[in-house]
């Protein structure tokens, strides 16, 4: 086995693995990404039923209704709102008037059904997406963004 030959094999193996990886990644980037949408985007350009996305905004005050294990609430960016239904336990820090991100899709009847309601680690944390949605709707106040430092890990 000469050095040249060995190098050739190494290059070939690298190309094969990288090629496979690139193919997998490109396919996955086309199919497996979940987009984030604000309530305004969702209202103006409604996603198809069954297509999964993340919705972020504030939990509108006074809209949380519980019926057994079913809960519904409105997610708003203060210019539009989307009603969300969820079957399950809400995260500990789920509050009216606070930021929230839900992942789910519209069902055939046009109802947004959340598959997951994402939790936060502390009270003052505002997910960047929610902050962005609020900024886009022009309702962001910088004071809301000011937060005290607190970190895990």
């Amino acid at each position, binding site marked *: 086995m000469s050095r040249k030959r060995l190098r050739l094999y190494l290059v070939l193996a690298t190309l094969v693995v990288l090629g496979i990886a690139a193919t997998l990644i490109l396919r996955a980037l086309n199919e497996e990404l979940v987009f984030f949408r604000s309530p305004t985007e969702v209202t103006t350009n409604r996603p198809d039923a069954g297509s999964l996305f993340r919705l972020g905004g504030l939990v509108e005050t006074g809209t949380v209704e519980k019926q*057994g294990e079913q809960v519904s609430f409105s997610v708003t960016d203060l210019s539009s709102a989307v009603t969300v239904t969820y079957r399950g336990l809400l995260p500990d820090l789920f509050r009216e008037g606070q930021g929230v991100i839900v992942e789910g899709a519209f069902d055939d009847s046009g109802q947004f059904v959340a598959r997951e309601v994402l939790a936060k680690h502390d*009270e003052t944390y505002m997910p960047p997406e929610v902050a962005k949605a609020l900024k886009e709707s022009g309702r962001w106040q910088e004071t809301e963004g000011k937060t005290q430092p607190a970190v895990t890990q």
Partner: protein
Amino acid sequence: MIPELGHYALVLALVMALAQASLPMVGAARGIRPWMQLAKPAALAQFAFVAFAFLALMQAFASSDFSVAIVTQHSHSEQPLIYKLSGTWGNHEGSLLLWVLILTIFGALVALFGENLPPRLKARTLAIQAMISVGFLLFMLLTSNPFTRLNPAPVEGDELNPLLQDPGLAMHPPMLYLGYVGFSIVFSFAVAALIDGKVDAAWARWVRPWCLLSWSCLTGGVALGSWWAYNELGWGGWWFWDPVENASFMPWLIGTALLHSALVVEKRDALKSWTILLSILTFGFSLLGTFLVRSGIITSVHAFADDPTRGVFILALLAIAIGAPLSLYALRAPTLRGGGLFAPLSREGALVMNNLLLATMTATVLLGTLYPLLLDLTTGKTISVGAPFYLATFGVLALPLLLLMAVGPFMGWKRGDVRGALQRLVAAGICALGAAIIAVWIRSDGPLLAPFGLAAGVWLLVGTLIEFMERIRLFEGNPARIWNRARHMPRAAYGMSLAHFGLAVAVIGMTGAAAWKTENIKVLQPGQSLTLQGYEFRLESVGGIRGENYLADQAHFVVSRDGNAIANLYPERRQYLVQPMPTTEAAIRSTPLADLYAVIGEPDGKGGWIVRVYHEPLVSWIWFGALIMVAGGLTSLSDRRYRVGAPVRAGAAQAAKA
């Protein structure tokens, strides 16, 4: 007074680090021995100062000294002592101090135990290690001083975030940091070798114990983090492919590659420059992880409110710490010509494939982690990359790696006998096929992941066992001779078998937990029940209890199967007294076959409680497997050959081998 002393000690540590970073380096270049020898006392003193600062901060937490700002922000006088103590690193400033403490621990260890290292290499290694310290100490003193005082001091603190009041906080960060930061010393060794211009088998042997130690701690740290996230509702379960989780996983992947490529340097004097590159990258990924976690630049379920300006500082540190060595690498790598040649089908060839796959897998995780950020910057679209992406990329690449893992150990160095290896693995193949069939039989409509994952896990499990049995020749000779062979087998070989076996166990666990998890949710009145997978969960009662610093509603479930009660579960819903924040404490009954996991939510106002239960098959295998892997790493570490300081360069090492 003590906090001021702590602050002062940090400044002294910085001075020490500056001395340690400069004088030994110059000494090594000019051949001034006393300057080189300065590295040892400087490293020890630096460690002593940082340790003092750390203890001072811990003391402030333990005694609830609310004149210290971060104690006020993250502690409370009525908090249990363990959370007062672990609160020391449950915040930005304190966790940085822990980071630097571990950095100096590794420096001090090399200073103490590296007696047999060539003086030049040792001086340079310690100097590089000190440079990293300088960066982080400056970061701490300039932007995040842990000892900032409040005047007037408040009477009471704000309490540690209730979600962090968990045994997980006491164990996970120190363990993870030991691994993360431990790779810094490998990095320092690599950069020192680049300056030296010499990488050989002896270098690989000097680096190996540090590599093994860091890898074992990182494995433990990642596993503990996963276990904590599993226990905490709303963190997405045992693995969420969350950026913060990925941040700890990427150094693990690339560090695992490093562990294997360093073997080739040690045994065959090949893959030298690649190994150096991996050493630099592993610590680079640790720094990247620190940056991702500290800056809050990417949305994470584990994210806390944070100060983005600090991220810029870490980014600058990252750029310097990675940029400079990589430039040096580009300059010096061509001179690191490998010695040993090998056939593509050989142990070396298998390890190259291992490295290729691990590096590619790391790249897919990196891409998935950073892609949302890139897309946001370039197009303004916000996306999230979740488990499906990783399964379709990382998961698919993991399969060939697991297949190869069973074959590799059968291959000889230089030229391996693939056919012979495969013949000896027939039994493993049959078992794997059986496992795949069982997987489909258990749930025919389950995801494709189940049969493939289970088969790969079983293949590796049985393959590793066969390899071990052949090595001690279990079926040859009388028991005394077999025992003798087993006893004389190098610890490193045991280490490998254990680590591979552990990974197989973990893979089986991950597959089961990911593919077959089921859940049920219902509103229950006391006395009512719900069923899941043949288990009946009956809500007996819900009562109020008082913990040290919280009130809680505690539910009592009786779990029964076929009418026989098998377990009592007591999930809680806690309300902490200081921070008005409810937390959910899951109750888990763990058995080897499956975990039963129960949580209780809010009352519905009509006497009922919302209840959620999960059935998680094989999930405990994940952490059991990780534990075996850690044991494997530590067993390898105890190998005589790697006793720190034992190896000697070239001639003597050859003699020892013969």
